[in-house]
C-alpha cells in the first residue's frame, strides 16, 4: 500500500457517514432519490473496500496506509499524541473491510422494499456501517471504542422499529447484554491506558509496551468476555438468536455478517495483540468455550422450527469455531479463525437475505409449514442450497476452506477438540439437510402457490454473496496470503 491509501481507508469510514448526513437533508417522500443515493453509496463502499483489500501488500509492513490526524492532545491527562484519528490496516483488517464492503451492497438493495420510514432506516443503517468500517480501520484505542459503540447503538432502534415478532424484547435484550460487555471493555481500556502511562491511545505504541504479566492475566478476560458477548461467545450468546430473529433482513445480515465479527476482531486487537501473555494464559479457556458454543449451537439448531432462529443458533455454532481457532495459538488455527469470520459473514448474510425475502411474502418462516418449495421458487432454493452447503463445509465452498484450517489447528493443539469440531460439522450437516428435505423437496404445499420468485434486487444481491462463497472456496489464496502472513509475523505468542 502506498501512503496515500490512508485516504482510501478514511473514505470507507466517511462514505457511509457522509451518506447518513446527506440522507438527513433529503425529504422522506423522495423515495427514488433515497434509493439512488444509497445505491451509489453502497457501490462506492464496495469499490473502495475492494481496492483497499487488493492494495494491501502482504509482504510489506505490519500496518499499512498508516496516517494520523491529531484530535485532542496536550491537556489534562492527554500527552503529546493524546487521541488521534489514526487509520491503518493489517491483513486481518483488510479481510474484514472487504467483508463489510460486500455485505453492505445486498444489505442496501434488499432494504428498498421497506415502506415505513425508509429514510430513517437508511440513516441508522449507514451510521452503523460507518461504525463497523471505522472499527476495522482505526488504530487509536479511544476512537476504536467510540466507533465500536457507534456500531452497536443504532441496533436498538433498527430492531425495535423495523423488526418482526418479539422485536421490543429482542432489541432490549440485545442492547443490555452488549452494553454490559462494553462495561468490561471500557474498564480494560481505562486500565491499559493508565498502566501504560504513555499519555496516548495509539494502539501501535501500546502494543510495544510490555505489560506486567499479572496485569495481562487480570485484564485479558475482560476484553475476551466484553468483546466475546458481541461475538456470541458461550455462555453470553443468548441475545443473538433472539436479536437475529426479530431484526429486519438487512440488519440481520449486517449484524450476523459483520457485527459479530467485530467482537472477534476486538479480541484480537485489544486482547491478543495488546496482552499476548494474558492471551496465551487464557487460550485454553477460549477453546473450551468455543467448542461448547459450537456443539451447543449446532444441537440447538437441530430443534428450531423458525428458520431465523435456526440460522441464529447456527451463527452461535460457527462463531464457536472462531474461538476454537483463536484458542489453538497456532498460525493455521488462527488463519482458519479469521477465514471463518469472513466466510461465515458472507454465508450468513445470504441466509438472512433469503429468509427475509421469503418472509416478506409468506409472513411465516416455520420449517414444518413448508414443503416442496423448490418447485415454486427454484432460484431461491438454489441460492439457499449454496449457502447451506457452504455452512456445512462442502469442499469448493468458503466454509470448507475456513473449517479445514481450524480443524487442522485444533488437532495440532488439542486432538480431542479437533474431534469434537468435526462432530459439530456433522451435526451442522444434519440440521441443514433436515431443513432442505422438509422445506424444499417432497410434495408441494398448495398453501404457498401465491408465492413469487424473489425480486431482481434480491437475486442480484444473492448472486454477489454466492459468488463470493464460490470464489473463496475455489481460490482462497488472496485471503490466506494476507491473513496468514499477518498472523505469522505480527501476532505475538502464535506459533507455527
Amino acid at each position: 500500500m502506498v501512503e496515500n491509501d490512508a485516504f482510501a481507508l478514511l473514505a470507507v469510514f466517511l462514505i457511509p457517514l457522509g451518506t447518513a448526513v446527506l440522507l438527513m437533508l433529503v425529504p422522506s417522500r423522495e423515495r427514488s432519490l433515497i434509493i439512488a443515493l444509497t445505491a451509489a453509496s453502497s457501490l462506492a463502499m464496495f469499490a473502495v473496500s475492494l481496492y483497499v483489500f487488493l492494495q494491501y501488500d502482504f509482504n510489506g509492513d505490519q500496518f499499512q496506509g498508516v496516517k494520523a490526524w491529531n484530535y485532542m492532545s496536550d491537556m489534562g491527562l492527554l500527552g503529546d499524541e493524546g487521541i488521534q484519528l489514526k487509520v491503518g490496516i493489517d491483513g486481518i483488517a483488510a479481510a474484514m473491510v472487504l467483508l463489510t464492503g460486500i455485505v453492505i451492497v445486498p444489505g442496501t438493495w434488499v432494504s428498498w422494499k421497506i415502506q415505513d420510514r425508509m429514510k430513517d432506516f437508511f440513516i441508522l443503517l449507514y451510521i452503523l456501517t460507518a461504525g463497523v468500517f471505522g472499527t476495522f480501520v482505526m488504530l487509536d484505542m479511544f476512537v476504536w471504542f467510540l466507533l465500536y459503540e457507534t456500531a452497536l447503538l443504532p441496533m436498538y432502534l433498527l430492531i425495535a422499529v423495523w423488526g418482526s415478532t418479539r422485536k421490543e424484547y429482542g432489541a432490549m435484550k440485545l442492547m443490555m447484554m452488549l452494553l454490559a460487555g462494553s462495561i468490561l471493555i471500557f474498564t480494560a481500556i481505562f486500565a491499559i491506558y493508565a498502566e501504560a502511562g504513555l499519555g496516548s491511545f495509539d494502539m501501535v505504541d501500546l502494543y510495544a509496551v510490555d505489560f506486567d504479566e499479572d496485569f495481562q492475566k487480570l485484564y485479558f478476560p475482560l476484553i475476551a468476555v466484553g468483546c466475546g458477548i458481541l461475538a456470541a461467545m458461550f455462555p453470553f450468546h443468548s441475545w443473538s438468536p433472539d436479536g437475529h430473529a426479530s431484526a429486519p433482513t438487512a440488519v440481520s445480515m449486517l449484524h450476523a455478517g459483520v457485527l459479530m465479527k467485530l467482537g472477534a476482531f476486538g479480541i484480537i486487537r485489544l486482547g491478543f495483540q495488546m496482552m499476548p501473555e494474558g492471551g496465551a494464559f487464557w487460550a485454553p479457556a477460549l477453546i473450551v468455550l468455543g467448542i461448547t458454543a459450537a456443539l451447543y449451537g449446532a444441537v440447538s439448531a437441530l430443534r428450531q422450527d423458525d428458520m431465523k432462529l435456526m440460522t441464529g443458533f447456527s451463527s452461535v455454532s460457527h462463531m464457536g469455531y472462531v474461538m476454537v481457532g483463536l484458542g489453538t495459538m497456532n498460525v493455521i488455527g488462527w488463519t482458519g479463525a479469521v477465514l471463518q469470520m469472513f466466510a461465515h459473514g458472507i454465508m450468513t448474510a445470504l441466509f438472512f437475505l433469503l429468509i427475509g425475502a421469503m418472509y416478506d411474502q409468506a409472513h411465516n418462516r416455520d420449517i414444518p409449514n413448508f414443503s416442496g418449495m423448490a418447485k415454486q421458487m427454484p432460484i431461491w432454493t438454489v441460492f439457499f442450497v449454496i449457502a447451506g452447503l457452504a455452512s456445512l463445509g462442502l469442499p469448493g465452498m468458503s466454509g470448507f476452506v475456513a473449517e479445514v484450517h481450524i480443524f487442522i489447528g485444533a488437532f495440532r493443539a488439542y486432538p480431542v477438540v479437533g474431534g469434537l469440531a468435526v462432530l459439530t460439522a456433522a451435526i451442522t450437516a444434519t440440521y441443514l439437510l433436515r431443513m432442505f428435505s422438509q422445506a424444499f423437496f417432497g410434495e408441494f404445499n398448495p398453501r404457498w402457490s401465491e408465492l413469487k420468485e424473489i425480486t431482481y434486487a434480491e437475486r442480484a444481491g444473492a448472486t454477489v454473496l454466492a459468488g463470493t462463497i464460490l470464489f473463496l472456496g475455489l481460490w482462497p489464496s488472496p485471503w490466506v496470503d494476507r491473513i496468514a502472513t499477518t498472523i505469522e509475523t505480527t501476532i505475538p505468542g502464535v506459533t507455527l
Partner: protein
Amino acid sequence: MTTDLLGNELNLQYELLGPEIAVAVTAMLVLFADAFRRELNLGRFALPALSVAGLAVALVLSALWIDENKDFARLVQIDNFTTFFRFLFLAVTLIVIVGSHEYIEKHVSHVGEFYSLLLFSTVGAMLMASARDLLTAYLAIEVMSFSLYILVSLTKNDSRSGEASLKYVLLGGVASAMLLYGLSFLYGVGGSTQYSEIAAALSENTSDVELPLLLGLALIVAGLGFKASAVPFHMWTPDAYEGAPIPITAYLSATSKAATFALLLRWFSGPLLPAIDDWQWMISALAVATMVVGNLVALQQTNIKRLLAYSSIGQVGFMLMAITAISDTTGSALLLHLSGYVITNLALFMAIVAFYNRTGTEEISGFRGLAQTNPYLALVMTAGLFSLAGMPLLAGFLTKFILFQSVVSEGYTWLVVIALIASTVSLYYYLQVIRHMYLYQPEGDATRWRLTPTGYLATGVLLIGVVWVGIYATPFYTVADRAIAPLFA
C-alpha cells in the same frame, strides 16, 4: 490602596465585579419595569428582552478578565476559573430565558419577580465560583438558594409547586445551618475565613484538632451534599423538580449543580486539600451511594421531570468521583463533563418546555408518537437522552470517557467500575422515553406542529452543542484545562 483593620492591603477595583453588578442592576430594572408595566406601555417581550440584554452586557464584561488573576478586597478571586463559570452561568440563564419565555408568560405567576429572582440567583452562583472567603461563599450560596426557594413556588395553578417550595426551603434551611456550623468548626481550626490562610493552617500539623476538623468536614459535606443533591441528602430534589416551573427545573439541574461543584472544587482543591485523608472517604461513599440510588430509583419514574431529577442525581455521583480523586487532570475533566452535562440537560429541558407548551403534559407516556408529530423535537430529545446515557458521537460519551479515565489514572478503578454499571442501567430508563417517542402511534391529536422561532433557536443551538462537544471537544477541553489551572498553581 486601602487596608483593612488587620493591615492587609485591599484591592478595590470595582470593575472586577462588572458582570455581577450588571446582572444585579438588570434584576432591579426588571422589577421596576414590571411595576410600571402599564405606565411604560411595555409589550410582552419587554421583560425577557431586558433580561437578555443585561446578561449579554455581563457576558461582554466577563470577557475582559480572561487570563487575569486578581482578587477583589480579599473576598473574591477573578481568575480563569471564575471567568469559566461566569460564562457558563450567564449562558445558562440566557438560554433558559430565550427558550422558555412563552412558558413563563403562560404558566408562571408574578412574571416580573420571576425574571428578577432568576437574575439574582445567577449573581449568587457567579459569586459561589469566585469566592475566596468562607463568609462570602456562604452568602453567595444563600443568595442563590433564597432566590430559588421562591422561584420553585411560582408555577401557576399547581398545588405541587407550593409544596415543593416548602420542602425545599425547610430542608435547605437545615442544610444551610449544618454548613454554617461546619464552617465555624473550620474557622476554629484554621483561624481565618480566608481560603489561603486555612490551607496554610491545615497543612501545618493539626494532630490535636483532629476531632473538630472531622466534625466540621462532616457537616460541610452534608450541607454541600444537600445543595448538590447527593444521596442521602437528595430527598428534596424530585419534589422540587416536579413542582417547579420547567425553566426553573432546568435551572436547578444546570446552574445550581454547577455552582455547587464550583464551590466544591475551590474548597477541596484549596483550603481543605491538606485534610484530604479526612474527607476523601466521605466523598467517595457519597459518590457510590449517589450513583447507585439515583440511577436505580430513576427506573420507576413515570413523570419526565422526576425521571430527569433522579438522572441528575445519578450524574452528580459521577461528578463526585472527580472530587474524590481530585487533581488538575480530574479537575479539568470535571469541568469538561460539567459543561457537557449542562448543555445536554438544557437541551432536554428546553425541548420539554416546548413540548409542554403544546400538550400540557409531563408524563412520559405523553411523549407517544412524538417522532411523527414533531420529528425535530424527538431528535433533540433523543440526542439529549442518549448523551446523558453516554452514547458515542454525543457530548456525554466523550466527557464521561475523559472523566472516568482521569479518575482511573488517579487509582480509583473500583469507583469507575461502579460508575460504568450505573451508567449502563441509566440507558435503560432513557430508552424507555425514546421508545415512547418512536415506537408508538400518537394518542389524540396527531397533526404535525412546529416550535416557535425562539424555541427553534434555543433547542437548535443546544443540539449543535451536544453534537459538537461529542465530535470535536478539543476547544472545550482546552478551555477547561485553562480554567482549572489557577486552582492548582
